[in-house]
């Protein structure tokens, strides 16, 4: 299934893009998505940590993704 992936902060530099469409398995959790992302973009391992947001809310690893979800990679935030 297709999902939309958004990158922010330092991860846009790693990936060279701020948004792309990815094809993933029809049954995939956030954890599965993170694993496939790690394989595709090994530079993400340079990050201390990052969070995932699905449709503008922080998501836990066990959340099941759905077709057309907007999945955002959230590196450590530094607002304020």
């Amino acid at each position, binding site marked *: 299934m297709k999902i939309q992936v958004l990158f922010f902060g330092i991860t846009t530099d790693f990936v060279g893009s701020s948004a792309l469409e990815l094809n993933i398995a029809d049954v995939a959790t956030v954890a599965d998505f993170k694993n496939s992302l790690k394989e595709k973009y090994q530079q993400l391992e340079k990050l201390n940590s990052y969070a995932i947001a699905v449709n503008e809310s922080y998501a836990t690893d066990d959340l099941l993704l759905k077709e057309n979800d907007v999945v955002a990679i959230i*590196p450590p935030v530094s607002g*304020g």
Partner: protein
Amino acid sequence: MVRTSIKITSEKLDLQECYRFVEDDSCGGISAFIGTVRNDTQGKEVTQLDFSTYKLMAIKEMQKIADLALEKFDIKKIAIHHAEGMLQIGEVPVIITTSSKHRKAAFEACEFAIDTLKETVPIWKKEYFSDGEVWVNAHP
């Protein structure tokens, strides 16, 4: 009555606007936190800061903080405004104002809001130095 004001803007933040929003006849005090761009980080001279946001989500997270502050503290109103884009030394990336009947709640809610914002709201700053630039917090 609207008790929260949430904004992300590329325009200059307006302290008067945040102040006027929380003003209320039932309140004995207003507290404000004003974040400013500092000229150095760990002894290195910063020339400017660039704030980028995941705006849709950042607005939602800021709204959550405001709603939670209303729940946790005895405050009347709260405004949380954040800037995006390039800011120079001394400019203001964030303003938080709170109003309450007695001062303690306003102080506490203000501190809670800025502390939580720095942990949860998807906003990132890039620091510019004379010899390069770095994303803040991205590395251990």
